[in-house]
């Protein structure tokens, strides 16, 4: 019988002690835009050093094409088992369950076989390989395999053009075996006449009524008896937790497809040094989510948070790259924390205790208004964040009056700075004074008509946000609108 606990490909031990990462964090930094769906299902945790290293080992194995192919096949096999599991759970009668179970176990055994020859090196893979190699040599596996060899052909024989349904108006009868179909005769005739075979018209899979199913069972009693016997005998060997490998394998394969895009764009990918001390240093961090917009050139920036200056306001010209910089920091932190390589030249990072973000959201009809929504979220962050956390805020408190926003922004920034979280706070509130929180600013080239350079520097911003340039381009200044509407 299979072991109760299948070996995880994500965690060396349990994830019970791992800090959780809220799904909205991944959405805020737009990592979800690059990844296939469900890639992040299994990864909402900040890992221990042991787990980070273990996952890196698997990513290293994925550099080998053969291993990647085998892992893909294993994922496909898990998904196939998942599909049959869904069908099994949706079945309305024992007869349906009996026949579906045969296909389900066939897919499960195929998974075991593929898993036993997966190969690769590292803590997680060694454990995985050992487990499944042992399982395929056990008696339950051999017996189940033999049983499928006898039973599965019966499935195909019942399902494919054998059962004859005889309809007379609203009545129906069933028999085993019918004559050759007219369609097959017509196809043969077409071929003999030198014509193309008529295309087979698709029919969407249609569930039949329970009565018809029972009629089919009567028409093929021996086969269904065999299916029932198989299910009775083999059900104890079906470990449904196997299906968790769908998301586990999906994680690796989903990220690997992103890494392919990153390296194809000429962007470096490295595994940061894991620092035992509190540290956050990145040279040339890239916001790889811009690849989802097919951006031609992504401008990298350095990131440095220290004990003395752990937290910054980030200000500067509209369209200057503030949010991009914020995302670069967020993506790097997340990727590092879940065991993935980071898009940068060099990095040394300590494992955070928590990762928190606040990006602007649309008003929801069911919320009490945007400001209150913001306040609630900020409160939750303040509740959980500590000096080991990373906090990234994007124009928090932009949904209230300017005076109030300045006060709240100053208070929040000061509090986070004092707590010692690493992080950034994008704000347009230029009225903040008397603050210990240092500033970063996006650089514009004043000599070149305020061209955005997308570089971030350590200095306080000018009072202006260069919003007027953008308004001029689209002829939305007071003068253009006046001319257009005849006011002036």
């Amino acid at each position, binding site marked *: 019988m299979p072991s109760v606990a299948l070996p995880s490909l994500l965690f060396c031990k349990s994830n019970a002690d791992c800090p959780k990462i809220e799904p909205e964090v991944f959405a805020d930094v737009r990592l979800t835009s690059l990844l296939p769906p469900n890639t992040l299902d299994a990864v909402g945790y900040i890992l221990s050093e042991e787990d980070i290293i273990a996952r890196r080992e698997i990513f290293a194995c994925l550099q080998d094409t053969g291993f990647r192919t085998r892992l893909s096949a294993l994922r496909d096999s898990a998904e196939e088992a998942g599909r*049959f599991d869904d*069908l099994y759970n949706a*079945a309305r009668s024992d007869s*349906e369950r009996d*026949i*579906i179970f045969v*296909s389900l176990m066939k897919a499960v055994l195929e998974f075991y076989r593929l898993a036993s020859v997966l190969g690769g090196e590292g803590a997680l893979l060694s454990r995985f390989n050992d487990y499944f190699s042992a399982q395929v040599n056990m008696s339950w596996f051999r017996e189940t395999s033999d049983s499928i060899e006898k039973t599965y052909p019966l*499935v195909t024989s019942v*399902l*494919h*053009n*054998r*059962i*004859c*349904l*005889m*309809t*007379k*108006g*609203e*009545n*129906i*009868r*069933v*028999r*085993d*075996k*019918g*004559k*050759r*179909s*007219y*369609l097959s*005769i*017509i196809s*043969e*005739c*077409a071929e003999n*006449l*030198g*014509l*193309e075979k*008529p*295309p*087979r*018209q*698709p*029919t969407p*899979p*249609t*569930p*039949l*009524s*329970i*009565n*018809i199913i029972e*009629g*089919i069972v*009567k*028409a093929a009693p021996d086969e269904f008896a065999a299916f029932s016997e198989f299910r009775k005998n083999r059900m104890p060997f079906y470990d449904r937790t196997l299906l968790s490998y769908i998301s586990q394998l999906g994680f690796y394969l989903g990220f690997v497809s992103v890494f392919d895009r990153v390296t194809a764009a000429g962007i470096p990918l490295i595994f940061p040094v894991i620092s035992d001390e509190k540290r956050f240093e990145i040279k040339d961090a890239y916001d790889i989510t811009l690849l989802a917009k097919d951006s031609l050139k992504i401008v990298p920036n350095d990131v440095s948070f220290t004990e003395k200056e752990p937290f910054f306001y980030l200000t500067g010209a509209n369209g200057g790259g503030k949010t991009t910089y914020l995302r670069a920091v967020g993506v790097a932190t997340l990727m590092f924390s879940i065991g993935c390589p980071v898009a940068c030249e060099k990095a040394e990072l300590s494992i955070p205790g928590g990762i928190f973000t606040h990006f602007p959201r649309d008003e929801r009809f069911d919320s009490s208004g945007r400001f209150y929504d913001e306040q609630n979220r900020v409160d939750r962050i303040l509740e959980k964040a500590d000096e080991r956390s990373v906090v990234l805020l994007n124009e928090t408190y932009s949904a209230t009056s300017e005076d109030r926003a300045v006060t709240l922004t100053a208070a929040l920034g000061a509090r986070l700075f004092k707590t010692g979280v690493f992080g950034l706070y994008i704000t347009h509130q230029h009225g903040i004074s008397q603050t210990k929180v240092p500033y970063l600013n996006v650089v514009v080239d004043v000599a070149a008509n305020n061209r955005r350079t997308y570089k971030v520097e350590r200095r306080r911003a000018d009072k202006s946000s260069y919003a007027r340039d953008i308004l001029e381009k689209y002829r939305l200044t007071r003068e253009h609108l006046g001319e257009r509407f005849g006011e002036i």
Partner: protein
Amino acid sequence: MKFSILYREPEKSGRGEVFDLAYELSLDRAVRKLIPDTRRADYFLGVLTRPLTDVASIVYRQQILRDFIDFPDLYDELRTLFSRYDRVRADWQGMRSGAHPQSGAINRRALLDYTFASLKVTAMFPKTLLSFYTSFADAIDKYEVQSEGLKRIAEYCREMLENDSLNEIERISALFRYKTPKDFEFSSLAELDQAIRLVSCDLCGIEEIDDKPINPLVKLFTRKKTGETPVFDIESDEATVDDALYISNESLRRIDAALTAVTGGIYDVFFGLSTEIVFYDAALEIIRSLDELNIDFVFPSVFPPEDDGFRLLSLRDFSLIIEGKTGDDIIPRDAALMKSSDGFLIHGKSNTGKTSLLRGIAIAHIFAQAGLPVTAKTAELSIRRGLYAHFSSAEEDFRAGDTAGRFEGEVQQMARIIDGVEDHPYSLILLNETFQTTSYSEGAEGMWDILDTLHLVRAKYIFVTRMNKMFDFIDRDRVGTVEMTTEFPRFQNPAELSGAAAQEHPAYIEGKTEQ
């Protein structure tokens, strides 16, 4: 498989390139004078300007035309049959759309009735097609046709009438021609997926329901057929009723689709002949007119492109019909071009028939490669993969645009011709006073530079010119000259031949003209 009465192998037939010729040669005007019906004239010209480029295809068309000339009743009968045949598809589609249920929500029962009604329409057509095959074969068999094309049609039809597969399709179709779904029990083979969901159902039996009560003694003593498996009744509920109707509908729909596809494929074999016969309609009209106008014509002997030459005796310019001339008015000319010659120049005084000779040669090639007779007494031509002409005209200005000027317009035209001959070896270029829109010496030099290179792409030329300097440039071992010496009145003296053409071809008739 597709039959055509224009193309021996419809999918494979190559077509040559003809460059604005219908207009340049006034061929379109001549055709429209003889064929007033615009649709027929346009179709005919369309076929003319896509010349055939292999001997077998040309002979194929010649033979069919000869059969239509020899057997006018056959022509009339086939024209009627082809027209009726081509209307069948439109009738069929009209009947199918008429089977659609009226507007409103369609329930399963109504859908089943509609599907069966549509299938009944489809089921009629194999029978219809078989009856046409009988008609085609009977019509052709009444006459001793010589053409490969018509013989093949008849042979094909006879074979198809005996064809087991077609007859099997007809037999299956016959099952659905009458009555309604409630008169039958349908048997369908079910294809199920691994969750026992129906993914397809194909009809394998249809039995008419006999509602008469069965005598129990008869039932008792009726033997079950060997190999028959037991049949199980299904308890009826709403879901089962729905499924029963669905299964019937799906099975019938699938077979309707299959029969439609196959019947359509069989139908397409002869579809379109009513359009193609328009060409012969026009051809016969032209031949009748040539007869009436006392203009000689002959089916030419056609040779592969590599033979690269032609010989036309007593050639008449077809386009002079526009001027109302008859055979007695049009002077016949002789013309020949040998393989070893690059081409020839035609010169002479005004109104001596230079342009007419050029046109006559061009039209002879076009007609020959359309499978038509040529207005000559003898015609032997090799196939030209491209036929190009330039007739200098005042419209160059218009074509070239305000700033280009006439000469630039001519140069643009020549450039197009050169592009064409490059892609079509064994082309023939016919030029009428080209490049005379600039100084003659410059024009001659420019033209000679072009003509002298044409042999590199195996193109030949015939050039009517007044640029005397051309004759200083040419290599008379490779280029022939023709001097048209007739002075006004122009129906007097024949053309004289000189140079390589006369020397190389002893059979060439020099200076001979029909009086």
